[in-house]
């Protein structure tokens, strides 16, 4: 049981952390390119900003799905129920 709970905690941390890592690098690149583009042609800045927000939300999507799954495992871990059922079946 402790192994299951401990490994679940590590899995949750990896899910959130690696997702955040990827999104951080991606957004950094995106923001940098946007600022370069806005500096070269300031009149395009509003249009570029709209498109930047669209790409931000697309980047966020997979990271957020990872966060959702991680929080599900943190608070409603299905493995614990399975383990308890297996233990009850073996012990009873």
């Amino acid at each position: 049981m402790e192994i299951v709970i401990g490994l679940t905690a590590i899995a949750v941390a990896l899910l959130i952390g690696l997702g955040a890592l990827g999104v951080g690098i991606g957004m950094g690149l995106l923001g940098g390119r946007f600022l370069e583009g806005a500096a070269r042609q300031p009149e395009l800045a509003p249009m570029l900003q709209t498109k930047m927000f669209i790409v931000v939300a697309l980047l966020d999507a997979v990271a957020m799905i990872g966060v959702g799954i991680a929080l599900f495992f943190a608070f409603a871990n299905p493995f614990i129920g399975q383990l308890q059922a297996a233990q009850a079946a073996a012990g009873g």
Partner: protein
Amino acid sequence: MAAEAGHGPLTSGDYIAHHLQNLQACKAETGEWVMNIGHNAADICSGNPMAINVDSMFWSVLLGLVFVVSFRGVAKKASTGKPSKFQALVEIIVEFVDGSVKDTFHGKSRLIAPLGLTIFVWVFLMNLMDLIPVDWIPMVAGAAGITYMKVVPSTDVNVTFGMSIAVFFLIIFYTIKNKGVIGFIKEMTLHPIAPPTKGFGLIAAPLIIAFNFVLESVALIAKPISLSLRLFGNMFAGELIFILIALLGVYQLPLHFGWAVFHILIITLQAFIFMMLTIVYLSLASETH
């Protein structure tokens, strides 16, 4: 954090689980409809595939009605001479959606702009419910005997998948309407690698068609799934962080404020993205070169 009426002192885990539980109604084995209020256990409907999340249904329909009634009221009383402030707000929103559709949608359809407006305002209103302090509405509902209530419909997977599956059917409908069934099948089997049609390479054509089909099916199915899970993940994570901050006692106030201000951006962005991606997908489905 404070002991809720009728519950006694709760552990943190209980508080979180209480706030993440939907008000559900389902048909028990006896054939009668039960809800998980009163003496029934919280998970009386868990595992039942036909369970209905009554709270999500109620709040999403209510917010849809708020949108339709208020916008229609403004449209009927619209005056060019002396617009009221609410009419000005509605005009800003409608012009914004209209501009987005004009920029992105390259086909001809009378459905797209109203669809975009509905999606944007409805998703925005549903997300806006997340800014109401976590305990207020559930406490009022608890006093009325309803034990569990989640007020943010977009934190319910069923709601977001309902919307994205509707968009998915619209994508297929528009593809078939603008390109025909043959065009739809051609699009699925002849992109992205055009199979050779004469000479020696003809042997490889079925393999390439199968490969194309797998790739295009995955891309097609990924559209509604990513659309709904993006909204769900963002809203669920936001709501959960609100609940976790609420566990901190008096220190929750500055943290709540900071997170709520950030969440305002997330709410608007997610509604805008749902609308933009719907318009983009429908534009891709309607392009006839």
